[in-house]
């Protein structure tokens, strides 16, 4: 890199080799208008608005794509430059409709801004309107290509940032326009409605559909999205105490310009008319609105009654994983100190915590989201990032397309990422254990792998892998030894390696053991290569990491508590921001809740659990409270109250504090910040979090990475799990996440736009379907020993044989699972033809 000196408008400026004129001009605060340029995208040079004049040669140069050179002398505002820009903009306007007054883009339109800067009032040229509107049914994005100026920002955002490939130019010359494959509507394309193109469109060609309010928002507040664990930063736009829009592009955030459909368009749940506005109390068997004082007193009395009669240990608090760190720590403290009760987070993290702690000594990842993009080799096992944690998915796809990283996907299902993978090992369902053992077995055959491992551990590993033969592996996993070796070689050839694993690993019956195997595999490869392999558990629930750090992941599962309720050992229950009734074991939960003596539910909506509660507190949503959240990579980010609490709702921490007060053990916290200072920052891990510094700027703090060494690579004695033979219930129902809903859709189900993409279906393999004589679109009955569900079938090759796949929202409230199967990925079922 060498320094280059040149002049802009007669002033001497300095830049580095490879800089463009525009970049240097912006560094020096010299204004050059642009339309197709965006710092997040590769320079394109399409719009010609950024023209500058080369004084010596007399050329007009597009400054966004012209590299600087020694002795260059440019002028940004000579009469010739201004005239050229005027012509360019007039040509754009000559094919642009004159509908600025009613245009959704309003004052944010960059074309209009530049036209007014250049003093273009009348276009003078013969108007040549181009393109017609496109009929679209999707509830998120509307295209009006008559306003398109062909800057290709949408196409480049799609290809470079989100890497979906839904659109590209079609045709050429005057006819060319951004289009999907076959020029159809977005909903039948690859589009995931992430809204990044809408965010970047300089004109009104792309805009958000169904906005709660037209026109400009009065102000916007930066906060953190609370849907999934990626922890995207976003601006919530506000008008009249209502959230009317979401914008991305906060500098330094994990997501940059991107977001996903939930983050961008799922915000309409915040001001949904069904939001709980006032506390409810059960009077004569019916839930009736009440005052806060009355509800708080009743809650305090109820909790006291249970505590005094059956002891504090018979009370449990369950919080959903989207509570803030402050709420999590307060819930724990309130439960232990005031009630003597137990408190847990419903995020299914126990097997992950167990497996990682035992082996590598830390939980979570030592890497970052950035690593997913910059790694040379990425191995994904039992995770589907594009659906569960979309931003992580973008990172992985960018890595493949931009950095040619080697992606290896191990999954029985065809997922979106298999298309990007160098290798896809379609392992038979339920045989991950054998596959992981096989990897370790192959590695241990190499002498150099045994170097960094103690003799005792090596013996234990060898003993463990001895029990399986390569023949067994091929037979059960369906993957040949050659393929396994190819995958290992490909993965090990990478200097920077990441293993991503998710629910497909952690939510198996032997999840903890599988997590151990993944960690051991990563460690052995790390020792072989001499640098650590980044382990990246894809924890998709928003603040599951924070809840773990705050002590709410402690081995007790919600299922255990509901079992306790059924057997009478749990008598008082307080469910905060979670709804067990969306689980496939809701039948058992219903029974359990009937046995509970005293049930409190705090929620934003009247959930299934709330309908059965004695007291319901209306909770504030993430847009109405402050605090911090810890994302998937261990980054602490701030939440800000953007609007006043809807109705009389209060943040969950305030409700806890109010009840504590009513019980005579007041906390005296004025705001979330006091809790951060007094209860979160004292935790050694969080001591670097300086919430006082969080002004209006975006703030994030990466938690210190664990420095603990690997504890053990020894594999515990355990008979290898060969898949069981099929019995009376030969199919496995696999419940998985879908992009348009978060988990089972507890909150996203109240976004009317996301709900329009809801589709209840079950997918089955084409071979199974033809054997069972079932056709695509038929209705079938799924039956387990506990319940049944009738549903429409999609026949697809995406699903492996012997498996029925259902998106989480489709199993909502069914009785297919038992409590023992809670948090498990697979439920044994059989299928029957529906009578109708």
């Amino acid at each position, binding site marked *: 890199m060498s320094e280059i000196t040149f002049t802009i408008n007669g002033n001497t400026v300095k830049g580095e080799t490879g800089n463009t004129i525009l970049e240097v001009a912006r560094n020096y605060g010299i204004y050059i208008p642009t339309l197709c340029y965006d710092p997040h995208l590769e320079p394109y040079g399409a719009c010609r608005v950024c023209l500058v004049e080369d004084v010596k040669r007399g050329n007009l140069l597009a400054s966004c794509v012209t590299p600087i050179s020694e002795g260059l002398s440019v002028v940004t505002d000579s009469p010739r430059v201004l005239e050229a820009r005027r012509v360019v903009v007039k040509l754009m306007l000559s094919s642009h409709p004159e509908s600025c007054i009613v245009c959704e883009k309003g004052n944010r339109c960059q074309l209009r801004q530049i036209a007014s800067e250049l003093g273009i009032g009348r276009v003078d040229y013969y108007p040549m309107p181009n393109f017609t509107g496109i009929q679209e049914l999707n509830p998120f994005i509307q295209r009006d290509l008559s306003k398109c100026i062909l800057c290709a920002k949408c196409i480049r955002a799609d290809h470079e940032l989100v890497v979906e490939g839904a659109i590209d130019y079609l045709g050429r010359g005057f006819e060319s326009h951004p289009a999907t494959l076959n020029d159809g509507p977005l909903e039948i*394309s690859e589009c995931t409605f992430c809204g990044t193109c809408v965010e970047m469109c300089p004109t009104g060609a792309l805009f958000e559909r169904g906005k709660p309010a037209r026109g400009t928002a009065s102000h916007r507040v930066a906060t953190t999205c609370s849907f999934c664990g990626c922890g995207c930063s976003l601006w919530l736009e506000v008008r009249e105490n209502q959230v009317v829009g979401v914008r991305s592009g906060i500098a330094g955030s994990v997501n940059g310009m991107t977001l996903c459909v939930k983050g961008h368009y799922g915000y309409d749940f915040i001001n949904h008319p069904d939001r709980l506005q006032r506390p409810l109390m059960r009077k004569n068997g019916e839930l009736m609105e009440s005052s806060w004082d009355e509800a708080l007193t009743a809650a305090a009395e109820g909790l006291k009654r249970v505590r005094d009669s059956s002891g504090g240990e018979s009370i449990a608090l369950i919080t959903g994983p989207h509570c803030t760190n402050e709420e999590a720590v307060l819930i724990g403290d309130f439960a232990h100190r005031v009630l003597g009760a137990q408190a847990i987070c419903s995020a299914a993290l126990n097997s992950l915590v167990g497996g990682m702690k035992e082996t590598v000594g830390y939980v979570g990842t030592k890497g970052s989201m950035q690593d997913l993009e910059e790694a040379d080799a990425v191995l994904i096992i039992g995770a589907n990032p594009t659906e569960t944690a979309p931003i992580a998915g973008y990172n992985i796809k960018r890595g493949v397309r931009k950095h040619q990283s080697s992606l290896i996907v191990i999954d029985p299902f065809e997922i979106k990422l298999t298309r990007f993978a160098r290798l896809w090992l379609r392992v038979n369902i339920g045989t991950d254990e054998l596959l992981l053992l096989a990897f370790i077995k192959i590695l241990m055959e190499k002498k150099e792998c045994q170097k960094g491992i103690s003799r005792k551990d090596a013996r234990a590993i060898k003993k463990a892998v001895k029990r399986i033969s390569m023949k067994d592996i091929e037979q059960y996993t369906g993957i040949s030894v050659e393929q396994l070796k190819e995958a290992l070689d490909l993965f090990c050839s990478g200097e920077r390696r990441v293993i991503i694993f998710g629910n497909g690993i952690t939510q198996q019956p032997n999840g903890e053991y599988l997590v151990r195997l993944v960690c051991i595999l990563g460690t052995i490869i790390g020792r072989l290569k001499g640098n650590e392999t980044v382990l990246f558990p894809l924890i998709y629930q928003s603040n599951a990491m924070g809840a773990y750090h705050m002590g709410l992941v402690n081995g007790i599962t919600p299922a255990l508590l509901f079992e306790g309720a059924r057997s009478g050992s749990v008598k008082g229950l307080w469910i905060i921001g979670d709804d067990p009734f969306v689980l496939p074991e809701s039948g058992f939960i219903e029974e359990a809740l009937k046995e509970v003596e005293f049930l409190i539910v705090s929620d934003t909506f009247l959930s299934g659990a709330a309908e059965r509660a004695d007291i319901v507190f209306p909770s504030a949503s993430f847009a109405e409270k402050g605090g911090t959240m810890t994302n998937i990579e261990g980054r602490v980010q701030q939440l800000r109250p953007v609007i006043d609490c809807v109705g009389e709702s209060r943040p969950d921490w305030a409700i806890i504090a109010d009840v504590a007060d009513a019980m005579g053990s007041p906390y005296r916290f004025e705001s979330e910040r006091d809790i951060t200072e007094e209860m979160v920052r004292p935790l050694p891990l969080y001591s670097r979090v300086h919430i006082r510094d969080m002004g209006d700027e975006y703030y994030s703090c990466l938690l210190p990475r664990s420095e603990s060494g690997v504890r053990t690579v020894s594999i515990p004695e355990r008979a290898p799990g060969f898949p069981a033979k099929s019995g009376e219930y030969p199919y496995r129902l696999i419940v998985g996440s879908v992009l348009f809903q978060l988990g089972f859709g507890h909150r996203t189900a109240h976004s009317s736009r996301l709900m329009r993409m809801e589709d209840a279906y079950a997918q089955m393999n084409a071979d199974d379907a033809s054997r069972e004589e079932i056709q695509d679109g038929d209705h079938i009955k799924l039956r387990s020993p506990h319940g049944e569900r009738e549903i429409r079938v999609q026949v697809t090759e995406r699903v492996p044989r012997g498996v029925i796949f259902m998106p989480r929202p489709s199993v909502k409230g069914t009785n297919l699972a038992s409590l023992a199967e809670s948090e498990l990925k697979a439920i044994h079922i059989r299928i029957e033809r529906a009578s109708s």
Partner: protein
Amino acid sequence: MKIQELDLSDFESILTEYKGQKWALIPLLQKVQEEYGYIPPDTIEPIAKALHLFPSEVQGVITFYAQFSLTPRGKYVIRVCRGTACHVRGGRSILRILMRELGLKPGETSEDYQFTLETVACLGACFLAPTLMVNKTYFGRLTPPKVNSILKQYAK
């Protein structure tokens, strides 16, 4: 040429030749076009998959180049020059005659897939103006009778 009933059995072998080579998109498309007379839209996705491209990108390239077509074309593609030199020598009348005789507008293909009529900006043979091309053969110094005899030559 296989037009009415598309037989894609050779398609896989064409693909295998170019698999994984991003740069090979245009040669591959040319080969497909040569084989089938056009690029069947159903082949876009397999082509994209084989070359690690997005289907929309492949479509973009196909529609950008005039040499590629996504719809079946006639056995004989007639390209009438509409350049300046041909225009002053009566190129417009030549096109009118062809449109009337074939019953086609520029860009259209006859129902029996015998002819496709196209216009081009210049054939680079201005000294022969007015000109047209039938597939790869040039015809120059056209007159109405000459046009009719050319048509007769290629008629079924």
